[in-house]
């Protein structure tokens, strides 16, 4: 677990090694590294938690935001604002944006691999590769899912009837802790391909990687607010999302026990659709299942339209 610190205390490890400059007998390093300030990703912007709170990564190297209930509400608001624009784009256009995301991730492979707190470079490499491929695979779904999920209904009367999939709206996702990046990409993509927007509570044990991923989102053509990322304790952030009346669905990965019961109970307040699944780390690497249409179908509504035929 991460250790929480008081604001203002200074246990941070120096950003650059001090030894070289000490050898030269000069005060300070030869070149001071520039540390990144890790922020939440809300509405397409990088922001600090409104609460001013932060947490420290397990290795003690970085601070990251300890998002609050208010941040969760802000994230929902940002998502709501992005919904009609995102849902209103053509599937072709959404597909291009997801493919662009994959391109950007490919360009940041090294950074993503470095940030992943995994056992060794090859494990990190295979996860990053799988995550990029997962995004590519879903890019291709955007303009095809409707062909497969829609129907022309052979009603017994003089009517033309059809049913089409539509987005549900704002979906709150509890991303799996591990694999951090693949679990994140693999849970977000099936939700947003159909036009939903997402508020994601990301991995607690590896928040940095998710924030590198946020930079990929920010520099792809993904409209702000389509994907919003919150770092902090799962329980604390999921509860206000489960209670939020503008959140229409919950996608819970590896949430069990008392937390699952209380979230599902809160979800009933506005009849949220709840999808709760368990998956171990290796399951995410199954490329075929990871991009299955059934994962997308969980997060669509079916709209049926009737019209008379004939005079």
């Amino acid at each position, binding site marked *: 677990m991460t250790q929480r610190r008081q604001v203002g205390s200074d246990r941070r490890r120096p950003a650059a090694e001090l030894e070289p400059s000490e050898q030269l007998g000069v005060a300070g390093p030869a070149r001071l590294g520039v540390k990144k300030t890790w922020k939440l990703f809300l509405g397409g912007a990088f922001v600090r938690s409104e609460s001013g709170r932060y947490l420290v990564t397990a290795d003690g190297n970085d601070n990251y935001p300890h998002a609050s209930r208010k941040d969760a509400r802000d994230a929902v608001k940002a998502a709501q604002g992005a919904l009609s624009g995102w849902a209103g784009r053509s599937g072709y256009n959404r597909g291009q944006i997801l493919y662009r995301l994959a391109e950007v991730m490919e360009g940041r492979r090294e950074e993503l691999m470095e940030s992943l707190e995994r056992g060794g470079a090859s494990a990190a490499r295979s996860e990053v590769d799988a995550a990029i491929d997962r995004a590519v695979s879903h890019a291709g779904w955007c303009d095809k899912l409707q062909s*497969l999920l829609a*129907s022309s*209904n*052979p*009603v*017994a*009367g003089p*009517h033309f*009837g059809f*049913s089409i999939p539509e987005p*549900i709206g704002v979906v709150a996702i509890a991303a799996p802790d591990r694999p951090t990046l693949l679990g994140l990409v693999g849970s977000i993509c099936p939700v947003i391909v159909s036009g939903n927007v997402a508020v994601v509570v990301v991995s607690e044990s590896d928040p940095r990687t998710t924030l590198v991923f946020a930079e990929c989102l920010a520099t792809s053509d993904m409209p702000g607010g389509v994907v919003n990322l919150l770092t902090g304790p799962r329980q604390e952030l999921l509860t206000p999302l489960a209670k939020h009346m503008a959140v*229409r669905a919950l996608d819970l990965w590896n949430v069990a026990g008392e937390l*699952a*019961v*209380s*979230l*599902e*109970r809160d*979800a*009933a*307040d*506005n*009849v949220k*659709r709840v999808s*709760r699944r368990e998956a171990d780390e290796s399951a995410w690497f199954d490329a075929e299942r990871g991009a*299955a*249409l*059934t994962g997308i*179908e969980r997060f669509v*509504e*079916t*709209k*049926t*339209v*009737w*019209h*008379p035929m004939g005079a």
Partner: protein
Amino acid sequence: MTIKLVEEKALMGQDRRRAERRLDFGHAWDYAPAPEGTDHVRLASRYDLFIDGRFEPPGAGRYFETINPATEARLAEVADADERDVDRAVAAARRAYDQVWARMAPLERGKYIYRIARVIQERARELAVVESLDGGKPIKESRDFDVPTAAAHFFYYAGWADKLRYAFPGHAVRPLGVAGQVIPWNFPLLMAAWKIAPALACGNTVVLKPAETTPLTALLLAEIIQEADLPPGVVNIITGAGKTGAALVGHPGVDKVAFTGSTAVGKHIQRALAGTGKRMTMELGGKAANIVFADAPIDQAVEGVISGIFFNQGHVCCAGSRLLLEEGVHDTFVRKLRDRMATLRVGDPLDKNTDVGAINSKMQLEKIRELVASGEEEGAERFSAPCELPERGYFFAPTIFTGVAQSHRIAREEIFGPVLSVLTFRTDAEAVEKANNTFYGLSAGVWSNKGARLFKMASQLEAGVVWGNTYNKFDPSSPFGGYKESGFGREGGRQGLAAYLVVE
């Protein structure tokens, strides 16, 4: 018969300036009584629980009465199932699932369901009469809609039984197990069909609880299931009130819960099942907007609005209970609506000429009265059809409110009765905004002769079913179900299979 042309001063808006010419048919619309015969129907005085293929008395020996809401006369008494009865029914369903139904060759399963469809068709007249007796709906509706559509539903899903692998290409599918199903009183037999047919086709077994005010056609369906020789325990039908339903959905042996009813009860069930991992589908309430543009085919729209709200006394979750009129057409439309309402025949549900029958129960009648009173108190203008209501029984005259604000209770709450709230709009965007301004999202209607407008509206309305230039159309091949707090999951069509399968 004399038909006069009279001059009448219309009361409203632009019509106020000119006298309105309209036909006065005098008593020409009066029909002689044409009651459907009931002599071919033999109801037992007492009905037991249908468990494991047999009718069995309830363990505690308690029964309750079901009455005819049109006469308040007792029809029969039915068993009040308690937790132990629920337990027996679920155990029977589990045995049948493990030993017979899930193992049966899919085509054979389908053939049993076809048989049910056929016997329903054979016994259609009897079922229609009992449906009208027990629930109060006009015989023309139970005869021409409820019963044939119930048979069609069984027929449709029977054919899916051996084709499930085509429904989700690329995925293996398997049944869920035992389904606990709780249905409402507005379409008793049809809702039983909506629940049982897809569940059986997918290889599940079921325990169904009909509503306490309308148990009889479900019990006739139990007889039909016996007649079709279904293996014992595949379908179990237990009667009782809310407590029985709660015991059923909460039973640990139930793998899937399917509920149709009010949003309040649906939320209660969803809350109670939190964390259990049970699969759920919910078909809950609605407060549908029926939107009429000035460019609509007005006379057809009047008919559609009338059937949209007065079909089945307005006891319809997808009833078009909020009429949104484009401002320019408001006065003309309301006048035509009132004229049409005056010709609705309200009364004996068994009369073949009856358009609007009895309110299902005293409790429901009181709820309607209470909400109508709130409409008057909050300042909306009430018009009720000038019809004579029978002295006995639960009846309510078709009613519309004009001058309704979005904040009024009658614009927000589901009345589930023959009461229409009329609002107005000026632009398409305002119509969408008002239509979607509700926690519900089951259905909507759009009336316009402009195709582009109609489809744009259809895409912007948050509703599971959108009827364009028509209303209240249903078909087994057509998915039905809500957005938002109107529930989740779909019934009907290929999409309806997903509710009863594990898709690997």
